[in-house]
């Protein structure tokens, strides 16, 4: 038998484990076909096929295997699936095996076993901590072109798919009395006691089988195995209607006010999601109380070659053996400082796997353990340590130094290590709680958890199973009671005895070869020593200098060892060194899950007016205006350029008649005895004096005195106005008016409601507009110039529909705006087009509207840009001196009242054929283009079909005084320099005669 064949020989035990041997599953790893069983993780299936080498490390490209059996895994990162579903950096230890799974190793080239990048390991002196900062300083220009691309190629993890994700993701809110985070012994006990009290409980567990360590350990609870007890507990929970159990769900963040983020991997264990099922679901859980039962994470030991495939956590070896029936090796050794890992030796031996030696760093060991080992024929050495490991791509021998200084090599292919356990408090620190060191527990524990949260079980440092069950039970009951539940007493199951003595031991000082602290970021003990020598001794600096704990695993296995090393090197105690805290997410969360349905066209809501379908039928091209879609122009057959279409629309409106959907403009209904006084307060001009049946243009300032928005207010009764806003500012103006009403002037009798969606409104403009309305409305309304003069408004009933007609004009033509309830908007526009057919009516879009407003010098959002005052816009005279209004006082500040401020003017190209562009800056002819010579800028431009050349609006210093002057419109971004003449901003019909038709 060749060496390769023996290496690949399957290792599954003939029986046992939580796998279903009747359901074999096929999968591939790096293109090779293998099989595992339902219930396997990818890691257990790989180990079951004798695969130990699964990846290359981040920096040194060292061969790496499987270290853990949980979400804390730093090494076994693989790419899953292919094509658009390819997903990088998934942890093989939590990937649930499914039939047809494809996995690829990462960060190796050309192959996993022969990786060119491994040369980095030889060059490692250059890659020590801080190498980025030291090595690549000079020349600076090399950074972007040479160093960074080279580093990015050499160091790194998996590749994301460049294709769009074909799966769907969704978001859900959930509310509960008690959220239990973690479904191990403590979590199950907590959920059971809280659930039995009647409280609404949600239990989240990241695994697909509840039980946590109970499934990996060989334990007994109440006379049955730990995993059977967990299974029965999960059945009891499933039977309680007030308890929701979320399996495959990681609580990844703790937020203010009892809000928790969780991601449920709904379909990650399937080849493709079932139809209409999301791939993942994001939960936002609001809980009155939470029980953190996230257990503990086993620590590794820092010694030479501790990263070699075959060196694993002692608890992980037990998990693969007991839960998956996979012995992780053929000949094992144990390296530990705690009782716990001795169980690994006993479990392995019980399954027929020879255990060569137990190397315990302690000099005093519980005699019950040593006696049991000797009874089983296991050699044990106290006060000993592993100096180094050897083997090319997986473990062959370990070198052991005993207490008397003798060194010997032992042939093993599996080394199970344990440096003790660290309570897993990552989530508890998300809101800033800092854990403190406990000498008795040899770990960081939390004295002040976040509001509403209780920590129970191993996460609290209670490592004995009996304590864990009792604490979980009590925490669940207390949380339910605090949330209003009625707790019932029930007997607690009895757990078997165990040995949990432990002595912290962090690293083997005598090791000479590379000893890893952070596996995922390739931080070694030498890097920690270097950081200490160079003064980066605080844990926060240590982290940033060496990148310790900054990989995707957030240093779940590594941080504490790094901090302990720093403590030892600098002669401080752990309590003095302290620890870093964690930020969400606890484990990586796909951006797709956070986005949910909000992608592509559903990224934001799309608002359509009632006339949208009609506009589509008319061939409209639409433009986004905030969330709205508005018709931009209506091209006719044969029109190939938008400017042809827009110019035609302008000429037809000014020549005959056109109609434009203006329903998107904000409409606010203002009612109450003090409505007029209220509007006086928010507009710069007077509205309490506006006669009933009249409309007035109004300007609003922000508190700081700059212009906020413009629009009209129409008065229909003494206590009833209808205010219009620009489309873009509708929401902001509503908020501003509510602020004025509720915060600034709560004593006024006035009520506001937004009616933007309730009314369809159409602008009818052009010399034939009155004729059209007469045909359309018939006897329903008197629209004679006497009854409805310019800036008049009427309400009437039209075909039993309440309608409003405003005689206002943005185009400078004889124009009206007809408003009907939105459900009649579609019928109204169709009736209008029918009535106007003989008059030559055309629909026009926002572009033609824009051209006509520039021809008339009306300001719009280009000029209302948050930097202009009323005076800048030529509207200073509107500011009333007879009353107070929002923004009045601060508008008088010297900087805003400066007469030299850029003010509104019109511009024409000096050479009339030249084109103008918005955004160009004004310079005096001959002036050097620099900021000192900047005189203002062009805000809006349009081709005027009436004047037959380009025109524009702009803001220039001393504007109105400079009519007739020639300046330059200078645009260095687009490399343009055009001479323009300063003119009045009113280009067309300056006398306004057309308005009065």
């Amino acid at each position, binding site marked *: 038998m060749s060496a390769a064949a023996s290496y690949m020989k399957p290792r599954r035990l003939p029986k046992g484990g939580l796998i279903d041997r009747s359901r074999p599953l096929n999968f591939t790893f790096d293109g090779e076909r293998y099989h595992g069983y339902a219930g396997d993780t990818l890691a257990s299936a790989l180990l079951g096929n004798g695969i130990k080498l699964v990846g290359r490390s981040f920096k040194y490209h060292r061969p790496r295997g499987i270290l853990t059996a949980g979400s804390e895994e730093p090494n076994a990162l693989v790419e899953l699936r292919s094509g658009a579903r390819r997903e990088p950096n998934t942890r093989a230890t939590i990937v649930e095996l499914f039939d047809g799974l494809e996995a690829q190793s990462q960060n190796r080239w050309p192959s996993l076993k022969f990786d060119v990048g491994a040369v980095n390991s030889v060059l490692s002196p250059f890659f020590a901590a801080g190498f980025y900062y030291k090595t690549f300083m000079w020349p600076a220009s090399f950074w972007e072109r040479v160093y960074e691309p080279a580093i990015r190629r050499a160091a790194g993890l998996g590749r994301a798919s460049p294709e769009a994700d074909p799966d769907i993701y969704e978001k859900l*809110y959930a509310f509960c009395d008690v959220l239990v985070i973690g479904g191990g012994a403590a979590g199950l006990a907590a959920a059971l006691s809280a659930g039995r009290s009647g409280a609404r409980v949600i239990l989240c567990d990241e695994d697909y089988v509840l039980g946590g360590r109970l499934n990996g350990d060989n334990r007994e609870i109440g006379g049955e195995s730990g995993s059977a007890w967990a299974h029965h507990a999960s059945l009891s929970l499933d039977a309680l209607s007030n308890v929701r159990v979320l399996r495959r769900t990681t609580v990844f963040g703790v*937020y*203010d*006010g*009892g*809000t928790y983020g969780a991601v449920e991997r709904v379909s990650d264990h399937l080849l493709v999601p079932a139809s209409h099922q999301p791939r993942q679901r994001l939960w*936002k859980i*609001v809980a009155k109380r939470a029980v953190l039962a996230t257990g503990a994470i086993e620590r590794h030991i820092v010694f030479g070659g501790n990263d070699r495939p075959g060196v694993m956590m002692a608890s992980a070896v037990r998990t693969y053996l007991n839960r998956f029936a996979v012995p992780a090796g053929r000949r094992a050794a144990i390296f530990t400082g705690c009782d716990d890992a001795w169980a690994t030796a006993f479990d392995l031996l019980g399954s027929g796997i020879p255990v060569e030696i137990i190397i315990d760093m302690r000099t005093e060991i519980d005699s019950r353990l040593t006696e049991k080992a000797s009874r089983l024929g296991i050699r044990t050495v106290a006060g000993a340590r592993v100096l180094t490991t050897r083997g090319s791509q997986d473990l062959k021998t370990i070198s052991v130094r005993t207490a008397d200084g003798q060194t010997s090599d032992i042939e093993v292919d599996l080394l199970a290590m344990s440096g003790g356990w660290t309570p897993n408090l990552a989530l508890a620190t998300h*809101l*800033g709680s800092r854990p403190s060191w406990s000498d008795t527990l040899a770990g960081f524990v939390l004295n002040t958890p976040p*509001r509403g949260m209780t920590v129970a079980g191993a996460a609290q440092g209670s490592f004995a199973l009996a304590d864990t069950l009792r604490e979980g039970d009590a925490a669940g009951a207390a949380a339910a009671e605090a949330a209003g539940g009625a707790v019932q007493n029930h007997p607690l199951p009895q757990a078997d005895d165990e040995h949990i003595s432990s002595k912290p031991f962090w690293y083997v000082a005598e090791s000479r070869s590379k000893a890893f602290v952070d596996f995922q970021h390739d931080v070694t003990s030498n890097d920690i020593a270097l950081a200490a020598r160079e003064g980066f001794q605080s844990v926060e600096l240590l982290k940033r200098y060496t990148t310790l704990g900054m990989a995707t695993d957030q240093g779940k296995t590594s941080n504490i060892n790094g901090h302990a090393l720093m403590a030892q090197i600098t002669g401080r105690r752990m309590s003095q060194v302290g620890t870093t805290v964690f930020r969400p997410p606890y484990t990586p969360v796909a951006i797709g899950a956070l986005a949910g349905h909000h992608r592509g066209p559903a990224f934001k809501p799309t608002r359509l007016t009632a006339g949208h379908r009609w506009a589509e039928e008319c061939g409209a091209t639409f433009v986004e205006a905030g969330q709205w879609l508005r018709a931009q122009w209506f091209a006719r057959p044969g029109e190939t350029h938008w400017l042809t279409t827009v110019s035609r629309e302008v000429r037809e409106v000014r020549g005959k008649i056109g109609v434009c959907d203006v329903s998107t403009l904000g409409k606010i209904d203002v009612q109450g005895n003090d409505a007029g006084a209220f509007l006086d307060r928010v507009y710069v001009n007077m509205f309490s004096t506006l006669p009933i049946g009249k409309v007035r243009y109004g300007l609003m300032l922000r*508190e*700081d005195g700059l212009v906020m928005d413009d629009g009209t207010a129409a008065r229909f009764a003494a206590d009833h106005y209808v205010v219009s806003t620009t489309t873009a500012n509708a*929401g902001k103006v*509503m*908020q501003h008016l*509510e*602020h004025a*009403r*509720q*915060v*600034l002037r*709560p004593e006024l009798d006035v009520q506001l409601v937004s009616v933007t969606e309730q009314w369809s409104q159409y602008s009818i403009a052009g010399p034939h507009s009155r004729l059209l309305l007469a045909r359309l409305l018939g006897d329903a309304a008197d629209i004679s110039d006497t009854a409805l003069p310019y800036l008049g408004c009427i309400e009437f009933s039209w075909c039993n529909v309440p309608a409003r007609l405003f005689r206002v004009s943005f185009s400078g033509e004889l124009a009206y705006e007809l408003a009907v309830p939105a459900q009649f908007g579609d019928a109204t526009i169709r009736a209008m087009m029918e009535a106007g057919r003989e008059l030559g009516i055309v629909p026009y879009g926002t572009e033609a509207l824009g051209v006509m407003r520039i021809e008339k010098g009306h300001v719009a959002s280009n000029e209302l840009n948050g930097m202009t005052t009323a005076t800048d816009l030529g509207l200073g005279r509107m500011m009333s001196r007879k009353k*107070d209004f929002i923004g*009045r*006082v*601060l508008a*008088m*500040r010297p900087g805003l009242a400066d007469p030299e401020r850029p003010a509104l003017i019109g511009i024409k190209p000096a050479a009339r054929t030249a084109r103008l562009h918005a955004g160009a800056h004004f310079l005096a002819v001959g002036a050097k283009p620099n900021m000192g010579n900047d005189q203002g800028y062009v805000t809006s431009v349009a081709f005027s079909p009436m004047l037959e050349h380009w025109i524009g609006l702009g803001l220039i210093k001393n504007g109105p005084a400079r009519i007739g002057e020639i300046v330059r419109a200078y645009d260095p971004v687009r490399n343009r320099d055009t001479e323009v003449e300063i003119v009045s901003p009113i280009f067309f019909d300056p006398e306004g005669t057309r308005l009065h038709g």
Partner: protein
Amino acid sequence: MRIECPFCGPRDASEFAYYGDAKRRPETSGSDVSRQLYEAVYLRDNPAGRHEDLWYHGGGCRSWLRVTRDTRTHEIFGATFAAGEPS
């Protein structure tokens, strides 16, 4: 974060827009009004600890609320209508 709206009940913070210090705006007449208003608009206090903010429940009942919050922990102690209790 969640805010207990006196009209809608406890709601997610994403429904609210933050405005800032809830101190009353100075009167707009008087000798020193320009400086007082300038300070109210631009020089708001940002104390560490208990603070009264204005929040707008734009995604709900459109009430302006006076919210008492700890700026260090984001703990919300309560919210009242800025306009006073409805009569």
